[in-house]
């Protein structure tokens, strides 16, 4: 198949052949942007969520100057960035019939194993497209919030850099968590419960519901042993200055360990999953 794509075997052709499958990354953005009406509800939703989050945290801090090591600007910034992360870290593929559980129940998962791109790579390409699309929207919302002064800037350039690096690793861990959930479908056909479980865990233990610093010590100790807090709490804590930029090394090591562990685990899962694809009972 590769030979057919690369008639001369030259470097440009090889590069083109390598990049060609990445056109699939455009599927989600194109699907969303060609139905512009679908952009309105999420835009309205994120605007109301951000406004209410801003008001809520300012109201909570009305009689308090510092709580859990966070002042009002830090807590509000953390909570609002958490809203953006929750809103844009995943894209709703369900209404397009494009979730893993729908592919499994409708049998169209078979096409993933008939293409000249491996199923594992295709999944990665689609996920990168989703993250790029969601990230673009999140960036627009972030800049708008920054422009009106609702969100504060990081305390320093090193803090900003540390937050950005850990965010990249956080997104990688989120990607692997979703991949594990989707691969469960190869064994259980449905993954609704697992998705609910991880949504719950991600929302609560990552700090998306509320900054983890407000929770009791035992809760934070438990969450430190789980991957969820590395996805959001770490980058946001570095961003608002609750964690010093000097903590980057240790945080990065933890994130790298989780990423490597998940990469190995999902590599093994993909091999097992590909060997047991069941389409419509056959």
């Amino acid at each position, binding site marked *: 198949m590769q030979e057919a794509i690369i008639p001369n075997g030259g470097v440009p052709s090889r590069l083109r052949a390598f990049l060609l499958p990445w056109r699939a990354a455009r599927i989600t953005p194109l699907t969303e942007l060609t139905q512009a009406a679908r952009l309105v509800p999420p835009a309205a939703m994120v605007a109301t969520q951000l406004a*209410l989050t801003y008001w809520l945290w300012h109201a909570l801090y009305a009689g308090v100057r510092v709580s859990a090591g966070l002042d009002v600007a830090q807590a509000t910034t953390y909570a609002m960035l958490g809203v953006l992360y929750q809103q844009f870290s995943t894209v709703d593929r369900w209404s397009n019939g494009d979730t893993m559980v729908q592919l499994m129940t409708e049998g169209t998962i078979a096409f993933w194993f008939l293409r000249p791109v491996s199923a594992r790579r295709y999944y990665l390409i689609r996920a990168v497209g989703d993250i790029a699309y969601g990230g673009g929207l999140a960036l627009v919302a972030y800049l708008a919030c920054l422009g009106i002064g609702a969100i504060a800037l990081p305390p320093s350039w090193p803090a900003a850099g540390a937050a950005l690096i850990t965010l990249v690793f956080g997104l990688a861990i989120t990607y692997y968590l979703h991949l594990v959930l989707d691969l469960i479908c190869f064994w259980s056909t449905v993954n609704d419960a697992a998705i609910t479980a991880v949504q719950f865990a991600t929302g609560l233990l990552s700090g998306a519901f509320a900054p983890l610093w407000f929770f009791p010590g035992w809760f934070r100790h438990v969450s430190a042993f789980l991957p969820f807090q590395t996805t959001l709490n770490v980058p946001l804590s570095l961003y608002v200055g609750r964690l010093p930029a000097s903590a980057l090394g240790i945080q990065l090591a933890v994130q790298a360990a989780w990423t490597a562990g998940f990469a190995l685990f999902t590599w093994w899962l993909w091999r097992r999953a590909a060997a047991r694809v069941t389409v419509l009972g056959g």
Partner: protein
Amino acid sequence: MAQGTGRQVVRQVRGFFAAWRLVLRITAANLGGRLQYRGDFLTVLAMGLAWQTSVFVFVAVILTRFPGLGGWSASDVLLILAIRLLAHGVVVTVFNSLLLTPYIAQQGLIDFYLVRPMPVYRQVLLYQFPLNAMGDCFAAIVLFAVAITRLRLHWTPATVVYLAAAVTGGALLEGAVLTMVSILTFRRTIGMSVFMWFDRMIGTFGNYPFSILPLAARAALTYVFPVAFVAYLPAAVLTGRIASTGVPAWLAYASPAAGPLLYVGARYAWHRALRRYESGSG
């Protein structure tokens, strides 16, 4: 003449009970279907419980960190949360399948529903057994028990009736919103996010006394998105804090009626919209 009217009444009563028997049989069959995936069943059950408990934990954390929220004591805030969770438990039990209308419409199932001898709306409600309702309801009842043991309310028959009306009204209000949003699926492809918008808004902000919010936010959550009518206003009436709500006393007292009124309007809108339904198959 009187005999004919009597027979007609008997026929209507029989028809009513026959319809309910059919609803129960379909529900039992749906439950049986969900029980086929036992792992999924147990996880959904546990997650419903964990999800609602996390809301309680979060509010407890906030109340500990920021005491005297808008002049409301912790037990009074717990009453808001208890009413909201009880109403939400009813919503999940009865109206949960409305969330699936994008999928139901996309699969062309509405076409089948239109030719069956049962109202389309009822068939949509019976589409799937809401497993998560069990966990949600259990958590809500436990929280309610905790709230009433801490509240120093003077319980009279009128108080109990008002509380029951508040929970029913809150559930119908949420049901009305879901019904109105589901109408959109008759003409367009919409995602789950539209449904989740109001759900998340109530889930995030419906647990606090709105007196902590600025006037604009309070007005928006009362008169534009009627979140205040779900739990905040009824709780203000029960705890004698109507003055702090900023709404006329008669409106606060009548707040449980908002749900039924909106629900009747939503059902009428559904009925009208169904006439203009456009099948997914053209």
